[in-house]
């Protein structure tokens, strides 16, 4: 039986190809992302192993705050360097820094991306313990010299001798470029930009005079790394709060930290590749169902000559196994190309992630081929069982192609799933866990997919109505063809349905978030202009800039708002930092209790829901620890609603801190009597000196803040694009099989006078109706899902939901285009139907 299956599988090359296509697409994205992340990981492994090659020990503070994207350690006083150098066994040691610094290009625009790889400022040292190798020029010495990493120098077209403006914690300054360096042996680590100074300049400009982030130490070879670390630890006074790591430990830690950050990214990619594979499942299932129906006679003949049900079923499963194995292997190989494409794509949008060579882990091959094959075989189980149930007598009969599905049980199961899902959603609306929401959404999706065949016919007939009345008998046949096999229509449309539902739900979600952002900013920001940067938590506008703006004659007031990581109780959130002295009337919280005015450096404001969650009331006290390790009990002075962040503190709190505090926004009110344009001009001289930040009027600022959501949405769209391609391929395959199945019908139509262009039109409209069926159902499902998610995640209830009408229309037009595009090849095949052989196949 196995050999027979193999022979039968290979005999039908066209069918083999079509089925494998779905599997190839499904697995290639998974393989692409796997190879991509394996390659990134091994690239960074090699990079840090190389960079830290000469580092035997690493000394840094014991105080840290987990920012959610890795730990941030407190600065260390430079005096410790002498202690370290004095330890027996140490041959060299230097300070190390990775602070925020933005290199401003010759055009006045900052280099690097706001939300891309980090932009660092650091120490350039000639010590062998330093991480940088001078490529050209020399190391910077003194307060007006800088060195850049080679990639940044090239990107900014800087050569040694040029003036380079750099903006950092203490403001914006111009330096002379004296050298260009490589990080290890590459031009830039991970697309980050680096501005390097001598240690005193770096400390003073980037952080605080006398402080560095950590120390790099090289031993003289007399001690092992572990012994060296112990010796340094022993020499450092307890009060210094410093700890020593071995070279291997810091390499491992840095690598894993980068991997954590990249991990978010690769998890994200993997999630979408599984969505693509899931959608691929539908296509595979559909193809097997159709081919099983088309070979009903073949199966019946096998039964008639003595094959058991089991044998017929197994023969189809064997075919699935062969196709799955073959498709997955090809999918894996094409994933290699896809991974290259992926990194090219990310490079193009500014997310330069270094990938040297190509890392293909053996377990990745096994895993992907295994997943692909299992998925294929699972998708084939139902059609295979159905084949086994074909009565032997069917061999003598004409194949029944248009099956009327038994709907009773299907409707029951579908409704049960939807009801269960709806219960989950209702629970979520009433404040149940997010996981319940997820299960509810899943239940409703599954229910709709099960119910699909029950309503695909009436909906397709309805959607086809205009086609039938506009396109005459040809349109009428398209409509009937789209509705004649409700199961097939539902299955073909399922990938479109899922894709569109996801896109619509995300779009609705984004539209609502945008509205909320507008509301929040509109309510809190009362000024005329805003100077803002996109980076939150790492760098931003030096706080000194606010003071420069404030003193402009055209400006009456200005206030800065920033964000910084801190420990609050048992959490490490980004907290909002504002200046209570200047914020009144410019940046206003929607206070529930208490007031923002006169917030002292021993007080804190808490978001109302958070306060309830943490049992905080006005007057309670909460422990806050800053990045530099300084810790304080703060008294809750009030609660607020609708602002970025769950905690807000006064700027005063950071007066003596080495925590690098930047502003993310500076809100400005124009002086009464001053002209708006003149004020804008005056402010922009300050901000263009700075080189970073965007100066916008109130309305433009609110718009652009809301528009940031679009970037995220664009990424989601991009990732769902592959699902769209799989959906298109699904329609193409189904149409091809349908055209093949209706060969005689098409031959007859051609014989009685249907022109080739009418045949094309007939197939095209059938495709459009099928695709629109999926899209319309998907939009309904997506809007409902989006609505439930928005309402359940937001306490302002239904009003928070915004229906994205324009986007919905775009999606429907997109579905129309998908239908037209998918029909091109099948329609062409249909016109090639040989009339005589089609009729003669009676």
């Amino acid at each position, binding site marked *: 039986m196995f050999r027979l299956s193999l022979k039968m599988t290979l005999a039908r090359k066209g069918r083999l190809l079509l089925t494998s296509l779905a599997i190839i697409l499904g697995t290639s994205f998974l393989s692409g992302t796997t190879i991509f992340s394996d390659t990134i990981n091994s690239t960074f492994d090699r990079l840090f192993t190389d960079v830290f090659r000469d580092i035997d020990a690493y000394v840094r503070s014991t105080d840290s705050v987990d920012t959610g994207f890795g730990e941030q350690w407190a600065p260390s006083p430079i005096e410790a360097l002498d202690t370290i150098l004095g330890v027996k066994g140490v041959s060299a040691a230097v300070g190390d820094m990775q602070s925020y610094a933005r290199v401003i290009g010759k055009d006045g625009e900052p280099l690097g991306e706001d939300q891309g790889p980090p932009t660092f400022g650091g120490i350039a040292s000639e010590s062998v313990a330093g991480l940088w190798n001078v490529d050209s020029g020399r190391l910077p010495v003194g307060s007006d010299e800088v060195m850049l990493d080679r990639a940044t120098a090239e990107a900014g077209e800087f050569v040694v001798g040029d003036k380079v403006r750099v903006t950092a914690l203490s403001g914006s300054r111009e330096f002379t470029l004296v050298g260009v360096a490589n990080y290890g042996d590459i031009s830039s680590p991970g697309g980050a930009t680096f501005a390097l100074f001598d240690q005193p300049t770096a400390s003073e400009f980037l952080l605080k005079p006398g402080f560095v982030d950590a120390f790099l130490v090289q031993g003289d070879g007399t001690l092992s790394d572990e012994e060296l670390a112990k010796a340094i630890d022993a020499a450092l006074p307890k009060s210094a709060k410093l700890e020593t790591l071995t070279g291997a430990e810091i390499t491992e830690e840095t690598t894993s930290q980068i991997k954590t950050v990249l991990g978010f990214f690769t998890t994200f990619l993997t999630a979408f590749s599984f969505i693509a594979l899931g959608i691929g499942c539908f296509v595979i299932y559909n193809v097997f169902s159709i081919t099983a129906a088309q070979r009903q006679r073949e199966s019946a003949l096998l039964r008639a000559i003595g094959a058991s049900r089991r044998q017929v079923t197994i023969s189809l499963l064997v075919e699935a196994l062969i196709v799955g194995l073959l498709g997955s292997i090809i999918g894996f190989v094409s994933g290699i190309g896809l991974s290259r494409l992926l990194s090219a794509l990310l490079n193009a949008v500014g997310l330069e992630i270094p990938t040297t060579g190509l890392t293909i882990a053996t377990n990745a091959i096994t895993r992907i081929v295994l997943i692909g094959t299992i998925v294929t075989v699972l998708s084939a189980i139902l059609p295979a069982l159905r084949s086994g149930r074909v009565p032997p007598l069917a061999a003598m009969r004409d194949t029944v192609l*248009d099956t009327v599905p038994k709907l009773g049980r299907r409707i029951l199961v579908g409704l049960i799933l939807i009801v269960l899902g709806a219960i989950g959603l209702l629970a979520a609306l009433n404040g149940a866990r997010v996981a319940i929401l997820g299960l509810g959404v899943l239940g409703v999706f599954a229910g709709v997919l099960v119910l699909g065949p029950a309503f695909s016919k009436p909906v397709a007939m309805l959607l086809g109505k205009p086609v039938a009345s506009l396109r*005459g*008998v*040809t349109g*009428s*046949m398209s409509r*009937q*063809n789209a509705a*004649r096999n409700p199961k097939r229509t539902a299955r073909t449309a399922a990938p479109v349905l899922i894709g569109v539902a996801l896109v619509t739900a995300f779009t609705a979600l984004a539209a609502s978030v945008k509205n909320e952002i507008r509301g929040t900013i509109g309510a809190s920001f009362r000024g005329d202009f805003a100077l803002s940067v996109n980076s939150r938590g790492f760098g931003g506008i030096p706080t000194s800039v606010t003071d420069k703006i404030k003193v402009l004659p055209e400006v009456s007031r200005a206030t800065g708002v920033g964000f910084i990581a801190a420990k609050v109780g048992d959490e490490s959130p980004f907290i909002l930092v504002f200046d209570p002295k200047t914020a009144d009337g410019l940046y206003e919280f929607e206070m529930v209790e208490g007031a923002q005015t006169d917030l002292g450096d021993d007080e804190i404001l808490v978001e109302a829901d958070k306060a309830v969650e943490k049992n905080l009331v006005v007057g309670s006290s909460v422990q806050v620890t800053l990045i530099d390790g300084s810790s304080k009990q703060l008294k809750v002075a009030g609660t607020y609603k609708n602002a970025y962040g769950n905690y807000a503190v006064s700027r005063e709190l950071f007066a003596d801190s080495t925590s690098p505090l930047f502003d993310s926004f500076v809100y400005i009110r124009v002086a009464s009597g001053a002209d708006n344009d003149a004020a804008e001009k005056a402010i922009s001289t300050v901000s263009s000196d700075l080189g970073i930040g965007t100066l916008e009027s109130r309305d433009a600022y609110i718009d652009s803040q809301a528009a940031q959501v679009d970037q995220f949405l664009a990424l989601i769209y991009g990732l769902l694009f592959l699902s769209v391609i799989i959906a298109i391929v699904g329609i193409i395959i189904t149409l091809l099989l349908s055209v093949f199945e209706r060969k*005689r*019908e098409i031959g*007859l*139509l*051609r*014989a*009685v*006078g*249907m*022109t*080739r262009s*009418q045949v094309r039109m007939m197939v095209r409209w059938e495709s459009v109706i099928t695709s629109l069926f999926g899209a319309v159902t998907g939009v309904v499902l997506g809007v409902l899902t989006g609505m439930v998610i928005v309402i359940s995640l937001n306490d302002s209830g239904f009003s928070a939901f915004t229906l994205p009408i324009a986007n919905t229309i775009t999606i429907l037009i997109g579905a129309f285009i998908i239908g037209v595009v998918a029909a091109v090849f099948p329609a062409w095949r249909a016109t090639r139907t040989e*009339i*005589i052989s089609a*009729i*003669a196949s*009676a």
Partner: protein
Amino acid sequence: MNQNLDPKNAAARAESASKIYGSGENEVRALDNVTVSFERGKFSAIMGPSGSGKSTLMHILAGLDALTSGKVFIGDVDLSTLNDKEITKLRREKVGFVFQSFNLIPTLDAYENITLPLSLGKRDGDETWINQVIDTISLADRLEHRPSELSGGQQQRVAVARALATRPEIIFADEPTGNLDSKSGTDILTFMRLAVTELGQTIVMVTHDAVWASYADRIVFLSDGHVAGEMSNPSPEKVLEYLKHLGD
């Protein structure tokens, strides 16, 4: 022999028509230099054993297939001068078809199937004529039924009605009774005979059954791709007698 009928009187004719499939050793001469005419307003039958080329001849005459050499005319139109679009239009307007089976589009009802060639050409057709045709096949009460709801005989009657609906130059019927019981077969043949006698249509039918062939005014016999002979006003006995000696 009636092969040199006045061209003006021919609804369809072939001149030195040859159709060769394959090449070299696999070459098959399905039609070998056939010249034949089918008279307007007559019921003609093409007979011959399997492989004699009778279906090929019909396909060629109907514009469903192209010749290797020679010429084919529908009325006075030389089919070799037409492109695919023009031939399709010609089939739609000037030719009617009845096949052995699978004659109807399953998604269209009986009436839509009958008027299909007209709808495809976006024409309304002659309503009185169509009603007359529908009356003749006595299926007026089943017009809204899908093919799957009709018996085999009823399906073939709808097919004949469709062939007649455009009032074509000529109707080709390929074993129209092949899948029917003798009662339904007789119905169809009677109806086709009626269409020629009463409605003045032209029908060419391919068959291998002497009884059905005897409904025709004239039979053309094919053998090995050649016209082997013909017979006017046939009876089943005469046809069977003729066929016995065809190989001689």
